[in-house]
């Protein structure tokens, strides 16, 4: 198992390090100013989340543009569709969109002389979908979610009591170490997944690892539940519930507190992030519960 993991790690890093030049053509713009100059032709699918893209007069972009934000100024030519869900699109007098310009909530300004093959303005959106549900519906949804989490936690605690207990023990005894490891791991894993996806070759690996990562983040719920199981245990007084029962209850309780934590203004989201990454750290320190973690200050030097 170790050898396979090592081989996989080597292969992933080696291929990622190659950079896969010219083997990908997706462009993701998140911030900053970007420019396609006169005489320049760029063949790529572009996704804009923010920032600014200017296609100058004489510049050509071959490929579709999907805008979820940002600012697009076209004075040259786009051969492909422009789908703007948000942000701003400015079409200069010499601009050409050889495709469909689709606008949802984007701000579109079109100069005289701009040529657009097909312009669909203000796609109707279901505004009712953005309205908050009534309180009873929210409460019911939350209750169902908590019940599902508790049920999954119960099943996992029946199947894997020792690994979860090891991770929970680490969380109880070394939260600061778990937090440090978890924060670093989360940052690196996220960046690595995005980078691997850019190489195209590694998209399947990236997706697979992404699923595992999300699964690990979800598992932190159960780890917290297991760590808090002794508290839930006390609720039963004379009865002696199993670890699975008290752990499942504690998982539901934790999930409720976690949900409420997120509603705190400003500090809510960072605190939630810290809580989740600390749980992730506990899982990593125990290698997903495969062995107990003991911090020892008296270590050898290499």
């Amino acid at each position, binding site marked *: 198992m*170790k050898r396979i993991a*090592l081989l996989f*790690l*080597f292969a992933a*890093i080696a291929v*990622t*390090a190659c*950079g896969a*030049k010219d083997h990908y053509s997706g*462009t993701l*713009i*998140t*911030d*900053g*100013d*970007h*420019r*396609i100059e006169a005489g320049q032709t760029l063949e790529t699918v572009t996704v804009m989340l923010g*920032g600014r893209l200017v296609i100058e007069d004489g510049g050509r972009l071959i490929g579709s543009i999907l805008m979820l934000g940002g600012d697009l100024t076209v004075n040259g030519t786009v051969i492909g569709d422009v789908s703007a869900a948000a942000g701003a699109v400015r079409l200069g007098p010499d601009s050409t969109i050889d495709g469909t310009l689709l606008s949802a909530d984007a701000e579109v300004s079109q100069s005289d002389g701009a040529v657009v093959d097909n312009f669909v303005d203000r796609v109707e959106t279901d505004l009712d979908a953005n309205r908050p549900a009534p309180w009873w519906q929210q409460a019911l949804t939350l209750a169902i979610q908590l019940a599902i989490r508790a049920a999954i936690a119960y099943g996992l605690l029946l199947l894997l009591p020792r690994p979860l207990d090891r991770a929970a023990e680490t969380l109880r005894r*070394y939260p*600061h*170490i778990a*937090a*440090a*490891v978890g*924060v*670093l791991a989360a*940052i*690196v894993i996220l*960046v*690595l997944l995005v*980078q691997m996806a*850019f190489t195209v070759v590694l998209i399947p690996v990236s997706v697979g690892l992404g699923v595992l990562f999300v699964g690990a983040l979800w598992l932190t719920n159960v780890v917290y539940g297991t760590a808090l199981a002794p508290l839930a245990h006390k609720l039963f007084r004379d009865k002696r519930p199993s670890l699975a029962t008290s752990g499942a209850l504690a998982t539901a309780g934790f999930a409720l507190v976690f949900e409420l934590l997120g509603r705190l203004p400003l500090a809510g989201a960072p605190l939630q992030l810290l809580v989740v990454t600390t749980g992730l750290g506990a899982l*990593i*320190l125990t*290698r997903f519960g495969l062995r*107990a*973690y*003991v*911090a*020892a*200050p*008296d*270590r*050898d*030097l*290499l």
Partner: protein
Amino acid sequence: MDARLPGKKGWLVTGFGLLLFSGMMAAGYLYNVTFIQLGLTDLGERVLSLSPTAVATRMAGFAVVTCTVALVFGWWMTRSGRGADFRWKAKAALAVLSVQALLTACVLAVDSAGEMSAWLLAAGAAMGAAVPVTFALTVDFVPVAARGWTAGLITATAYLSANLLPADWRIEVLAKDMLILMPLGLLLTAGLAFVRHPWIDQWANQHRDPSFGRGRYLPSAGHSRFPLRLLAVIAIMFAAFFIDSLGFLRLLDSPTHMLSAWQSNEPGVRLALGGVHVLGAAIGAVFYSYLDDKTLYLSIFGLFGLTHLLYTMAARSTGTPALAMPMLYALAVSMYTVVTFALWADVSTPKTIGVRAAVGVALSGWTATFLSTALALRWIEAGLPLTRHLQWVDAGAVLLFLSMILVIYFARSASPVNPKRGHI
């Protein structure tokens, strides 16, 4: 032997000393990363109109002088037994700080290449003496158990201050900033050197307590494992500094990368970078204190590899680089800076701290700096493009990362894992 004042007061004095030491070291490091590394480059290139190559050559010469003086001074400190003499170290620190203050005050009078070389020679000598003297004070102020956290505090304070200072890297501004800080440092060091006070007496005797005086990497018998294991660590730290310096030297030459990060006009960007440095320092402190050193080095090289990979990919495309790159960079740099501040005292006793800190800092830090400067200059002169330069740096970081994995894997296969060790 208990060197502390009785009761809680003794602990309070230790804590205050620790904060005092952290402040002084952070100020010293801030002086190094801003005034020396950035200000002197500005002096050479903007004020004296020297070519970047001429300035870099002089800076490499400065590193050689610093390295040599540090080794000689550290060796002499250990041989003469000064490393265990707190008052002497405080007096030496005062002398070094006075020279540095004087040099900082007259830096604006430098108006030729020759004068700059002479100035750098004097500054290199002062800096070289400062390395063993200031690092040797660790055994007087910082208990072994708190070294990781103290190093984290020093790193966080220095880098946060460096990022919060106005993004003006002109020598005039930096010299003024440093001259405001220096009188306070002179006053404090003079107090440590000459004032008789129970608190200072406690600090002067703390190194006699094994919880201060015996580094965590030394076996209980008190004999160190020098030189083999220390050399291995020096080699690893050298590699970390070399990779960092080789990459950063070229990025310094790329306005797009600097103006969107460390030299950004937006305080929010610099604050975010400062925040990431603090986060990196905290992670480094925890890793140093509770995890094995292999995990720490793996993290550092892994981060460097990833960062340079991002820079390489960004350099191929058009447009402004994302803030994620300098942030990852800041994380890695903070982590290894923590190790630099904590490690050398942990492989030493009060008697040997002078030479070991000098050997460690000089061979890993300064040697890496001038060698990477020389290599970067050679590549720039040869017309190596930015992308290719960063690819080499990236390859180096990934190679080191993979080598560390192999070393750890085979080391573990060869010997059973100690279940008491804190590793991932």
